[in-house]
C-alpha cells in the first residue's frame, strides 16, 4: 500500500472552491501564519510530521508549453497533503475531534464541504476527494513524530552530559549521570514497526 510507509501515512486530497472564496481562505491562512497560538492544536496533536495546504487557482495550473493544452476551469482548487502517524480512521477521527474549528476554517470554502462534525459525512467527503499515492518515501519510517521529538531531547541531554562530565571524578559523574537518567527516562521508548496498520 503506497499511502503507508512504516509508521507514516500519506494523505493527498483535492477540493474545488469558488474563486471568489479564495480570498477568505488566504486571509485565514495569513492569520494562522502570523499568530502561532492558532497552531497550538496542530502541534499538540503530535502525530503529524508535515502537512500543507496549497491553493491552485484556476489560472495557476502549471503550463509548460509544447503539446500541453491550457486548462479551462471554473473553480480554484485546494490541495491538501499530510504525513501522519497511525491509520486513516484514527487520523480523521482525531482531526474531527480536536481540530474541527480549524479544519472548518480551511475547508469551509470548498464546495460541498459538510463540516468536520458529525464524523460520518466528513469521512465520506475526505474519502471522495482523496487520491492514491504511487510512491512514498520517509527517511525514518520506524519513528513516529513523538519518537523524533523525544530522540532530539535525548541527544541534547547526552551532549550536555558529555560537555560537563569532562574531568569529573567518578562520584561527581555519578551525580550528574543520575540527573541525566531522570531527565531522559520518559524519552526512551523504543522505535520500530507500528502496532497497527502494517
Amino acid at each position, binding site marked *: 500500500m*503506497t499511502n503507508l510507509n512504516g509508521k*507514516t501515512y500519506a494523505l*493527498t486530497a*483535492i*477540493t*474545488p472552491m469558488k474563486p471568489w472564496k479564495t480570498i477568505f*481562505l*488566504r486571509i485565514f491562512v495569513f492569520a494562522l501564519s502570523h499568530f502561532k497560538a492558532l*497552531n497550538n492544536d496542530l502541534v499538540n496533536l503530535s502525530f*503529524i*510530521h*508535515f502537512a*500543507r*495546504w*496549497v491553493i491552485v487557482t484556476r489560472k495557476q*495550473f*502549471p503550463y*509548460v*508549453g*509544447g503539446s*500541453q493544452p491550457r486548462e479551462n476551469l*471554473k*473553480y480554484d482548487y485546494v*490541495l491538501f*497533503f499530510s504525513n501522519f502517524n497511525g491509520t486513516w480512521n484514527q487520523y480523521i477521527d482525531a482531526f474531527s475531534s480536536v481540530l474541527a474549528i480549524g479544519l472548518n476554517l480551511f475547508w469551509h470554502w470548498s*464546495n*460541498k464541504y459538510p463540516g468536520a462534525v458529525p464524523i460520518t459525512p466528513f469521512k465520506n*467527503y475526505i474519502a*471522495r*476527494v482523496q*487520491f*492514491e*499515492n*504511487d*510512491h*512514498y*518515501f*520517509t*527517511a*525514518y519510517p*520506524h*519513528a513516529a513524530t513523538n*519518537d*523524533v*521529538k523525544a*530522540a532530539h531531547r*535525548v*541527544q541534547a541531554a547526552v551532549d550536555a552530559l*558529555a560537555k560537563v*562530565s569532562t574531568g*569529573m571524578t*567518578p562520584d561527581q*559523574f555519578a551525580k550528574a*549521570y543520575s540527573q541525566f*537518567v531522570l531527565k531522559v527516562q520518559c*524519552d*526512551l521508548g*523504543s*522505535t520500530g*514497526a507500528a502496532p497497527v496498520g502494517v
Partner: protein
Amino acid sequence: MANKSGSLYGLTILSPIIDDPKADVSHDLALRIYLNGLKRDQDGPFAKVTGTHIARLAVMNDVVFVGHPSKEEHLQSQYLVFECNFDGDLDPYLDRMATQIPEHVEAIWSHCINFPGVKDKVAFRAYMKKCQVETTFYFADVNDKTVEQTLRALQTQTSVASFIETNQGKSPAEIQQAFSALLEAMKNAPAPVSGSGLNGPQRYQTAIVGGTIHHE
C-alpha cells in the same frame, strides 16, 4: 515564504503528463508502473538524495466532482504530483536530485510534457520551477533539524536506552568509562542510513574488555 518552515522546504510540483493516444501503454500508466516498482526503503531513490525527510509522487488523473449543485469539470492534462519535505533551499536540492538520482528523475519526468532532462541543470531547475506551485500553509512539527541530525538522534536514543539498562548497578567509575566509550562510538559512527528498515535504528556499538575499551 510559505514554502519554508524553519530550515525545511516544502516543495509542491505539478508536471503535466504526456497524452499520446498512439502509445501502447499510456504515459500515466507507465509512470504508475515505474513508481510502484521503486523501492521505498534505504535502497529507494529518495534515500540517496541528501536532505530528504519525506517525499511522495502521485498521478492525478483529474479533479474531483463533489456532487450537485457543484459543476462538473475536468482537467485538460493529467499531472504528476511531487510533494517533498527537505533540508535547505530549492536550487541545491534540485541539483542533488539531478546528480544523485539522475536515472530515476529521467525515468519519471520523461513521461511529462517538455521535460528537458537533467544533464542541463539550469534547464532542469527552470522546468521544475515552472511546474512548482507555492505552498499556502506549511506545517512541520520539527523544523530545525536535518535528516542526519534526526537519524543520529534516533540512534542515540536507542543506544542510551540500552546503555542505561546494561550499566545499571555498576560502580560510578565503570559507568563513567562506559559513557566515554559510548561518546567515542557516537563520534566515530558512520552516517546513519536514510529510510532504513522497520527494525529501528541500530545502537552505537561499544565493548569494554579487560578494562580496555574496544570499538566494534
